[in-house]
């Protein structure tokens, strides 16, 4: 499903180049729930950004299924992200001026602009499945942080991606909400067979995954 070959990322700084990720090799089979753990600045988010087509590796290749995603032209890469990868970010990533249902439908509309009705129908179904039916017309500021995170998960699922990337998906949530979000992510992985890669510094959360990958100083250590 996912294959990283000698993937590295170097950031130029005023004090010289900094290797955030140092030539990582990684294989994640389809349907696996993998957790990447490491301390702040260990390179885990940079690795996830390269896997998700958000940040170009300085070296190496990332293949999702048979596609070398960084060999794609920019517009095709955007479309690939849209169709194949779902993102759950650690920050409140809903657009504040759009309703919850607009936020959820947005990736579908970007990908299939002529299917507006279908996009909104799917968005409403997903919000229903995640217990947010009553908030479809609400704005992000009108719902709680946990509900916002669930709306973000709905948005990540709207195009039925094969790969879900979650970067600290429960940061700044209270414990009951954290458990609830993790349950939903595990359920998606189990029931839909969706490959799930979660970046976290929380070992307790990582233990819920099928496989834990430790990263330190830009290298996988286990």
């Amino acid at each position, binding site marked *: 499903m996912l294959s990283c070959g000698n993937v590295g990322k170097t950031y130029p700084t005023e004090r010289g180049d900094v290797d955030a990720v140092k030539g990582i090799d990684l294989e994640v089979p389809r349907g696996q729930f993998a957790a990447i753990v490491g301390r702040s600045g260990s390179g885990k988010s*940079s690795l996830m*950004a390269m896997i*998700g*087509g*958000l*940040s*170009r590796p300085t070296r190496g290749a990332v293949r*999702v*299924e*048979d*596609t070398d*995603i960084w060999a*794609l032209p*920019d*517009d*095709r*890469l*955007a*479309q*690939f*992200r*849209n*169709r*194949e990868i779902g*993102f759950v*970010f650690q*920050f409140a*990533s809903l*657009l*504040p*001026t*759009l309703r919850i249902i*607009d936020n959820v*439908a*947005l*990736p579908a*509309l*970007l*990908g*299939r*602009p*002529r*299917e*507006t009705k279908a*996009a*909104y129908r799917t968005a409403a179904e997903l919000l229903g499945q995640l217990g947010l039916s009553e908030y479809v017309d609400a704005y992000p500021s009108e719902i709680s942080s946990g509900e916002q995170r669930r709306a973000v998960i709905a*948005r990540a699922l709207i*195009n039925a991606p*094969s790969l879900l990337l979650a970067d600290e998906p429960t940061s700044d949530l209270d414990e009951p909400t954290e458990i609830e979000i993790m349950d939903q992510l595990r359920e998606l992985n189990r029931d839909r067979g969706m490959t799930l890669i979660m970046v976290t510094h929380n070992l307790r959360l990582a233990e819920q995954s099928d496989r834990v990958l430790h990263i330190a100083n830009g290298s996988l250590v286990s």
Partner: protein
Amino acid sequence: MASADIYFEADGQRSAKPDGAGIRFLLGSLALQNLGRRKARTFLLLAAVAICSGAVFTGAVLMRSIENSMDLGFTRLGADMLIIPEGTLTNITAALLTAEPTDLTLDTSIVDRLAGLKGIRRTAPQLIFRTDLSGYGGRDESVDMIAFDPERDITVQPWLEQRLDRPMRQGDVIVGGRREEAIGAQLLLFGKPLIVYGRLGKTAVGTHERGLFVSFETMDGLRETIRQICGTKAPLEPNKISGVLIELAAGATTRQMRFAILANVPGVKIVGGETMLTSIRQGLTALLDGVLALIVIMFASSAAMVSVLFSAIITERRRELGLLRAIGARRAQIIGMLLTEAAMATAVGGVLGCALGVLLMRSYQHSLVYYLQNLGIPFVWLDTAATGFIAIACILLAAVIGAIGALVPAWRASRAEPYELIRSEG
């Protein structure tokens, strides 16, 4: 298989092109709501564009009005120069409104040669002859008949005080200010019926006040009859004219042009115009050109201001843009959204500016017209249609300036990696 090609080529269609109403509406909403979200900043942007557009709109309307007024006012004062055959005697006051009746003529080819000289803005040929055999009014009255080209004319039509509500055509005659024929009435000249198209104002120049003005086409139609009645006279030969009235371009002086004409067109006499009036006309033309340059500079500075503002706006929204890129927005969509936002804001600013301009002009209308008329310039406001056209042009220009101003920051933001944008504070 998650091959990227399937999204572009499946079913032989490229349906992923973002041309749907839904996404356009959402991205448009984002642009509009972002403007509403930062009310103070949006207000400042609108105010700045409104002031600029208002100044440009007011300037353009006043400029065009003054230009029209100048055209009318100054052309009434006469031409800058008159070119006549060598040996012709002239009365200089009369000469700058019309050529003097004479048997000497010039070939019509001289008109194009003069028009080709640098420094000459307009050339107006005239043919004039005096006769007491026209049968005018059933009397043997001596009349000056002047043939002119209505398209090139600079000294006859500006004096029209009354005229039929249609363009002048063959068979029409314009009568001098002291003639009494009714407009639209029939006038017999050499036994041929002509229609009185208009009457000139009083100029205190005899030829102008008592002359009968026809187009060259009308004169051609009368030529054979006149020849039969008056006998062969030089002014009535085909392709002959009595003189050419000249209006100089901005920056050209009568002295320079006198040398240029004598060097290029031999066998002519040059009657110079009133140097002061020529200078005033040219000075005002240059001033209007300066105002135009100022307008261009104002719009350029608006574009720079919008660019700076949008750089700040985009910096503030980097995370939002990164998020849109992450979920599949293409670079063109990001640029389009930001340009739409800028164009919407500046177009609204343009509308407000034009409204402001109209209010200002209404407020100062009386004092402005009074002031200009005291200067001897008969002020003529631009008509409503032309004013509306300028307003629409200003609004569109404001929108285009907004889009141009936002283009560079939008393009730069679209080039950034989504992860770099997402990591930004905002």
